[in-house]
């Protein structure tokens, strides 16, 4: 999914870079509103895990592979804005591996980071509203949201391509091809995301941002009942 240099013209790439920089500034601000000491290493782990799993291309059709984008996964684990920051870090590091162009970094941060994390989380939150409040609903919502986020990411690329594509092509055919193959990749994304969220829910459900409402408030409420004792 990484856009190389050259696909999209310089002006559109520069505009995307500005938007991405603004997005990161907003994300740092939003994240700083709730992040605590415990979440700093968790966000580091989330980014590192996404980097690792992005290396694991899986086959989707004859001669075609796909890999995790990870924005929805990161968003469900650490929060939507923090998730976008995690993928942004992954993309910056990947540039040193010649994966994803340098002038295309902003385009990629928008498509693979912000669209998947914010869009994926919005779908996740919407599904959680209509599904019963239990663990299996969270796993199911994660999978569906992650799968949809890949298609949204492909659509975001198509918008950029329509605005600033460096080639003259019939856009309709590119759109159908992008959506078709990324719907298949989305199945893999959904399965990996659901499995990972399910795993973390099984080990440490309290660490999953998207499952905060399930955590029983053990730490604060019982103590208020015994607060009479002298301190």
């Amino acid at each position: 999914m990484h856009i190389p240099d050259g696909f999209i013209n310089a002006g559109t790439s520069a505009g995307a870079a500005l938007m991405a920089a603004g997005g990161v500034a907003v994300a740092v601000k939003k994240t700083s509103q709730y992040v605590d000491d415990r979440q700093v290493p968790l966000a580091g782990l989330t980014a590192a895990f996404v980097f690792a799993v992005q290396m694991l291309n899986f086959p989707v059709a004859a001669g075609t592979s796909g890999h995790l984008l990870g924005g929805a996964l990161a968003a469900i684990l650490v929060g939507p804005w923090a998730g976008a920051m995690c993928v942004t870090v992954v993309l910056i590091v990947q540039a040193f591996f010649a994966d994803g162009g340098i002038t295309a970094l902003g385009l990629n941060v928008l498509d693979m980071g912000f669209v998947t994390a914010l869009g994926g989380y919005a779908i996740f939150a919407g599904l959680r509203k209509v599904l019963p409040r239990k663990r299996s609903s969270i796993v199911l919502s994660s999978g569906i949201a992650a799968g949809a986020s890949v298609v949204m990411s492909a659509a975001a690329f198509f918008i950029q391509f329509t605005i600033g594509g460096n080639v003259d092509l019939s856009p309709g055919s590119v759109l159908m091809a992008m959506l078709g193959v990324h719907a298949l990749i989305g199945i893999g994304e959904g399965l990996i995301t659901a499995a990972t969220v399910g795993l973390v829910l099984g080990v440490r459900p309290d660490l999953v941002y998207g499952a905060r409402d399930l955590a029983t408030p053990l730490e604060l409420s019982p103590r208020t009942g015994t607060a009479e004792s002298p301190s």
Partner: protein
Amino acid sequence: MKNASSTRLFVVAGLLLAFALALFVSPFANPNPDGLNRVAMDEGFAEAATEHDLGDSPLADYRVSGVEHEGASKGLAGAAGILATFALALGLFAIARKRREPDTVPSKGGQA
């Protein structure tokens, strides 16, 4: 913060899993072009891609230059990437954490 050490254990275990995936699974990843590259080839805009500015970097294309063995080269490159990603994310989130400090000392774990 009775969970602090258990959270540390979780992070260490997660990192070990990431390293294991990079070292032992990534050499078996599917080598075919991904969705975007496939579409670019089929639709005829693949050649619009230009040379990567860091194409000569010692880690380009997930290979450690100088390590001959394919699988080992990819696995080691992945491990280096995991470390760099972890460190960079840690730094960025530590900045976000610091920004919060002034108004957070009394209340803990507050969520809007």
